[in-house]
């Protein structure tokens, strides 16, 4: 509900910080779902963006930065070029370990470190490939 209200606010250009919510009566401090966010005129652009990010994150939807790029949970904008580069590097590493048939503890640690820095979709894909290779003994190794 809160996300619909926020989208409505954006569509209605309600980012104008000088423009307060219409207060129609006692206890009417804004639309439903925004209770506790402050009352009339206190929702500035930065705060709204933060709220939208939190709402999207709570629904498992990647939040977008001002430039439309996915934002990491910590709030930093991801670089798609870096993400793609890292994705290809991890894929090459996995292929290598499959060819060799084994991964050492140190290599496993390095691989996991690399996976940790991937975007979420790529993390899921890389971990799936790693686990399938371990469980099929295509790669002999341990965590």
């Amino acid at each position, binding site marked *: 509900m809160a996300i619909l209200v926020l989208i409505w606010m954006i569509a209605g250009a309600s980012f104008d910080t000088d423009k307060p919510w219409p207060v129609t009566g006692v206890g009417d401090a804004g639309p439903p779902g925004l209770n506790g966010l402050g009352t009339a005129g206190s929702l500035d652009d930065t705060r709204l963006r933060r709220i939208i990010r939190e709402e999207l994150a709570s629904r498992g939807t990647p939040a977008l930065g001002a430039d439309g790029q996915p934002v990491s949970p*910590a709030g*930093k904008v991801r670089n798609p070029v870096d993400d793609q580069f890292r994705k290809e590097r991890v894929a090459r590493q996995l292929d290598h370990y499959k060819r060799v048939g084994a991964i050492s503890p140190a290599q496993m640690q390095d691989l*996991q470190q690399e996976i940790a*820095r991937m975007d979420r979709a790529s993390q899921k894909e890389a971990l799936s490939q790693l686990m*399938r290779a371990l469980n099929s*003994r295509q790669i002999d190794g341990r965590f």
Partner: protein
Amino acid sequence: MAGLVQPAVVEVTTNADGSGNAFGNMVTARFADNDVEFIGCGIRFFDDGAGGTFELGFCQAANSADEAGFCQTTRPDLLEAMKATGDYSFITFAWNPDGECRAIGFSTQSFYIPDKNAK
């Protein structure tokens, strides 16, 4: 007499689709008469490079025939469950074809503690 002792060797079951499950007692695995049997779970924390932390939980096991099973999770509820392991835990876990943990269980009982009279 030394109370009930209940060893639980590691058993690993894998299915054709890549899913499977494993269970066993850590003490029994550690003192097994072979050099391949083991079972355990762990959590690793990584800097995600974007100001956050990537938490990766995993369980792994191999039976006396060196048949192994692995699972991983990034789910907060399962990561929390993994913190319940104890020194003498019986561990059970299951995974889907992608190797994602689908069940994790720990049982810490007196009968899993090594027999003081054992070798």
